[in-house]
């Protein structure tokens, strides 16, 4: 059994609007995914596809009006949705850790870096402070913060963006989590720093044998740092599989057009591939959600498409997806960090 197993997760926003009408935005619909230790899963999609909401649902960080209305989240043998908030607090920050997009606003501005690291270890593991302090130094070394003895006395505002992100990763690692969720971990950082942070994440996932989920809109990050990928559109996973299968043999028209929109593959002069707007979450169309934007749309698309198996471990939610007979070329000589 996988470490994390999400099945048929539905998260909706339910609220009363200004006219006191009950409204329901179906933000996540039937999300199913599983994740094993030592693997990195990339979740890609455009704004509003539900990437971050998936992570927040798994961590139990939803606030009203967002509500999980169906499905199960099995983590390490227990269903997270049946746990009380106290029980959840024991898992969050310990077995499941999260690294968020904006490192500066995620650190307590009034607490020194070292103390923040010690605090999260004390909260979960307890024990003598000196043990936590030693652990904090160890983790600061692991994430490559130079001069950790000095730096643990630094305040968050004295850290650069890249350093703050390293602190956040160190914080996530303090209790040796089994699952690390990184929500856009490098979006605010410069490319040369991005490379440092992603190399670090990859090494740590192997070193600590964690399962990791990287949420991003950058297909390049997924292509080079993830093992598996799930492509999201309008609150659904529309294609998933190994990175090579999905990127080199995309079966869903949306994935294909997303890949074709990357600057390297884009040919100026040909018309843009994806037209139209994503569907209205309040009023989802019946059948395939991407029908309005799809060039291959036929009558059958008015019915809900099933997940079709394209190859071993590679599936796409499209009526027109065809199984792939040829074996995808495995990742060749890739220089890993």
């Amino acid at each position, binding site marked *: 059994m996988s470490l994390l197993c999400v099945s048929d997760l539905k998260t909706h926003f339910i609220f009363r609007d200004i006219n006191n009408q009950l409204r329901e935005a179906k933000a996540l619909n039937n999300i199913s995914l599983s994740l094993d230790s030592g693997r990195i899963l990339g979740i890609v999609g*455009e704004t509003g596809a539900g990437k971050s909401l998936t992570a927040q649902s798994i961590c139990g960080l939803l606030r009203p009006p967002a509500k999980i209305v169906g499905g199960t989240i099995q983590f390490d043998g227990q269903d997270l949705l049946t746990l009380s908030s106290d029980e959840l607090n024991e898992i969050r920050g310990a077995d499941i850790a999260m690294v968020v997009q904006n490192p500066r606003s995620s650190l307590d501005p009034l607490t020194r870096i070292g103390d923040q690291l010690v605090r999260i270890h004390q909260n979960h593991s307890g024990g003598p402070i000196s043990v936590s302090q030693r652990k904090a130094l160890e983790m600061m070394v692991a994430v490559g913060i130079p001069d950790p003895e000095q730096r643990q006395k630094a305040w968050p505002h004295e850290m650069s963006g890249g350093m703050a992100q390293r602190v956040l990763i160190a914080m996530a690692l303090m209790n040796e989590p089994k699952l690390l969720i990184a929500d856009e971990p490098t979006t605010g950082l*410069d490319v040369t720093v991005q490379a*440092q942070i992603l190399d670090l994440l990859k090494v740590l996932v192997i070193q600590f044998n964690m399962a990791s989920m990287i949420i991003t*809109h950058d297909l390049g990050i997924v292509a080079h740092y993830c093992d598996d990928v799930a492509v999201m559109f309008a609150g659904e996973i529309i294609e998933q599989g190994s990175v090579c299968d999905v990127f080199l043999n995309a079966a869903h028209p949306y994935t294909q057009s997303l890949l074709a929109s990357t600057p390297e593959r*884009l040919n100026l002069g040909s018309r*843009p591939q994806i037209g139209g707007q994503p569907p209205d979450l309040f009023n989802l169309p019946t059948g395939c959600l991407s029908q309005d934007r799809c060039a291959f749309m036929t009558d059958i698309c008015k019915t809900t498409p099933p997940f079709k198996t394209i190859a071993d471990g590679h599936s796409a939610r499209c009526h027109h997806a065809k199984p792939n007979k040829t074996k995808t*070329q495995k990742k060749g000589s890739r220089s890993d960090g």
Partner: protein
Amino acid sequence: MADVILSAKNLVKRFPTGKANSFVNAVNGVDLEIKRGQVLGMVGESGSGKSTIGRTILRLTDPTSGQIHFDGKDITDLPSNKIRPLRKDMQMVFQDPWSALNPRMKIGDLIAEPLKIHYKMSRSECADRAEALAKRVSLSTDFLTRTPNALSGGQLQRVCIARAIATNPKLIILDEPTSSLDLSVRAGILELLQEIRDETQAGFLFISHDLGTIKLISDQIAVLYLGHIVEQLPKDKLFDAPSHPYSQALLSAHLPSDPNEKLNKLTLTGEIPSPIDLPSGCAFHTRCPVAVDNCQTSVPMSEKISNGHFASCSQIAHGNNIIQRANKI
């Protein structure tokens, strides 16, 4: 040289920090030239002075020293009442379309605003032109009577582009016009910009931190580091044979979407130094994998490598492939 729309010589911009004799050295001696119909791409990390150069060229902020020639005229010291009429020939598109547009104005009025200011067009003329411009940027004319909150990011960026081309400018400065947009929307905007460039033959300064986008739209690329242009080269060369170690590091940090494409790892250590205390000598020596003692003291001069290709690095003569050399060290 009627071809050259804009040239800047030895452009310097310093901002006071509030402390005595302490400055943020945003731009440190930049030379650049933009020709008619040419797209100059400018790439660099945050804090490298990309946006400041864009703003200084338009005289939105005044340069500390240096010269700016626009369309053959020296505009460096032109008073603001003289510069304003010129502004119709130089336009700017900003990164964040949500904050670039007045939320209380109608889209039609927003598009026609430059026409009203520069040509004193009548209301009906403005409306006609706004409609034509909306069509030109593939924006539904239904939106003309709406306010910005009814439009998506990509649509708003189209409004900004329509505003920028309303006066038929000779120079358009695009400051990260696509970085806040989704991939699919980004493709459409780049397409539109390309078409407009071909039609109007305006010069573009395209500022971005994304190498992929820069490559797609630029003819010539300037790589910026700490307010210096460390390398300037034709776009194909950047992906082929950049000379400066920083350009090579930028290129190696660029992640192509093909998982089989091999990455040349040249990961820099550390981060961009503070522009308040610039490193001595070559600004890049603190992070450079091939720096020698000399780099700490002497400022490298810009050297011509081939036609249209210049780089400022004292180590270039010792071999071009710095990744190979760095890996050997």
